[in-house]
């Protein structure tokens, strides 16, 4: 194992971890407000397809990323309408959103299969990189989200809604509005994550190209204890499993990529079991429950 190998793995973990980070940070904001969204995989696919479509039509990759964010924001508002306004079951609605994403992304991306879109320009700095702007924005985004959640009144209200919406309402907050705001932000971030995969990495659209990353991102939220700063470390670990496997394969090492891909899932499960054993629950208390109060 040489230095160049370690550097290659690290750089590749950062790149693979980026789309995971954005998708997971969106999920984190939603879950902090008490809404679990199993449709993240579908959202990321919509982001990836929309990103390629918009980048291809406009010729500008930044337009692609922004359009992907907006498309997913809108898709997540459909989800929000069902779970918040219509009080539908969050798990069932999330899975429905996943299927919606499978279908919508196939439809959006169909005209762009095989098209190569302009990629995001890459910048090298501080001996790292070259990475594109979305990668460079990971740490600022994490800090911003942390500040938003833990150092603003809005963040306090959002977390209160995630713990006990009725109490938050009694304290003069509007749980439904806050959940909608959280889901809009979550959708945008998931769209950026999906678009980074297509516009930032492969520069093409391929049906089902997220291949389970949306679910890894959900595991990642748990792994990082619903904290945006831990999310950076988590994204590196989860992205690292993917990167290590690619680098080992490229060097002809005889390690099954499938066994390596399992590691993050099993690791998350073990960590969860450990928390359960030590009785340290950190999940938002009202996660997955519908708020039946008035507003």
């Amino acid at each position, binding site marked *: 194992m040489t230095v160049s190998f370690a550097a290659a793995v690290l750089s590749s973990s950062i790149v693979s971890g980026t789309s995971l980070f954005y998708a997971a940070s969106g999920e984190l904001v939603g879950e902090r407000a008490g809404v679990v969204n*199993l449709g993240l995989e579908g959202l990321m696919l919509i982001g990836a397809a929309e990103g390629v479509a918009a980048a291809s039509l406009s010729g500008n990759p930044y337009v692609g990323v922004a359009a992907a964010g907006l498309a997913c924001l809108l898709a997540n508002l*459909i989800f929000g*309408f*069902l779970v918040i306004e*219509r*009080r*539908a*079951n969050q*798990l*069932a*609605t999330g*899975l*429905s*959103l*996943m*299927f*919606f*994403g*499978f*279908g*919508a*992304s*196939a*439809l959006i991306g*169909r005209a762009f299969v095989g098209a190569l879109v302009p990629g995001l320009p890459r910048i090298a700095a501080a001996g790292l990189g070259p990475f594109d702007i979305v990668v460079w924005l990971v740490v600022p985004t994490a800090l911003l989200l942390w500040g938003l959640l833990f150092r603003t009144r809005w963040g306090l209200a959002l977390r209160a809604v995630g713990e006990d919406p009725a109490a938050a309402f009694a304290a003069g907050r509007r749980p439904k509005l806050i959940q909608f705001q959280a889901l809009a932000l979550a959708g945008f971030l998931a769209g950026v994550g999906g678009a980074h995969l297509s516009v930032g990495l492969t520069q093409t659209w391929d*049906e*089902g190209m997220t291949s*389970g990353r949306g*679910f*890894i991102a*959900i*595991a990642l939220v*748990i792994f990082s204890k619903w904290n945006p700063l831990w999310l950076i470390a988590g994204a590196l670990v989860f992205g690292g499993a993917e990167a290590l496997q690619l680098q080992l394969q490229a060097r002809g090492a005889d390690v*099954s990529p*499938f*066994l390596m*891909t*399992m590691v993050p*899932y*099993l690791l*998350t*499960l073990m960590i*969860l*079991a450990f928390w*359960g*054993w030590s009785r340290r629950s950190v999940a938002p208390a009202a996660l*997955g429950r*519908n708020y039946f109060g008035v507003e």
Partner: protein
Amino acid sequence: MPRDLDLALIAPVRLAFRRCAPRAIVIAAIALAAFALVLVIDGKDPVRAYRDTLLYVFGNAYGFSELMVRMTPLLMTSLAVALPSRVGLINVGGEGQLYMGAWLATAGALSFPQLPSWLLLPLMAVLGFAGGALWALGPALMRAAKLVNETISTLLLNYVAPLIVSYFIFGPWRSAESGAYPQSPAFVAAARLPSFAGTRIHPGFLFGLVCLTIYGVAMIRTRWGLEMRAIGGNAEASLRLGIPVSRTMIVAMTLAGGMAGVAGMAEVSAIQGRLVASLSPGYGFIGFLVAWLAGGSAIGIVIMAFLFAVVSSVGDILQITQGTPYAVINLLMALVLFIVLGQRNLTGGAR
């Protein structure tokens, strides 16, 4: 008609048909109209697509029989969700349990190719059951020990199971004749479930119906069913009444996993004839939605599974006649679900 039988079987059927069937038709109509709009925007002809589907599905016996084929795995994966839901457990892991069932059944088929069919098929079914059951046992034990919530653990394991399958078909079981899409060697004839006269309907369909019937009756007519419903209603109170809560939860979850596992066994044995990576187009997830839409009722599951079978055949027809990617059909499925989920009166109370 004895009153007991009426309560157990006829009344729920009548109720299900009166409530569920009209609902399914209205939902399907709205969703088809919305999906038609999507197709028109995409420059396709929805009238032609729907007419082709109707002609194919209801116009000839083979097309209709294909609906049963599509329903088969859904019957079992939705039972795998409905059963634990009675004790208040949420099993989102049908997909993974199906893959593990298929995997262990394949291990049986590849290890004992010399066995006669009457011995090999039951062995594979038992192995399929065991594979799914073991995959659900872990989450059940962790839940019973209050370590990890079963929703999260079953969800995570969904992604591990296909990786195990991929490891084997890319590695030890890789067939020499497989090209770009690795697969296991083809099963011997004795390891293939027979199908009925010229169709692809296999005994798995009957098995699914029988299991659903047993489930429906057992829930109402047995002490065990009553205990399960009591636990689902209030686990704490049930525990104080002396009902073995943890044990019942573990058994329900394990049986459920086994059911999904048998669905996997039936897919490889009857439909694929070998283990492939793309074994299921999300049968486990669709099963969750079917069970949830049916509110856990056995008859409701059959009706909703039928609805989803029709939806997926629309996808096939669109792909064949108008070149639309098959994945687009997920949009129709999602529209159906969104409409149902948006009906507050029907779903608001049922969590």
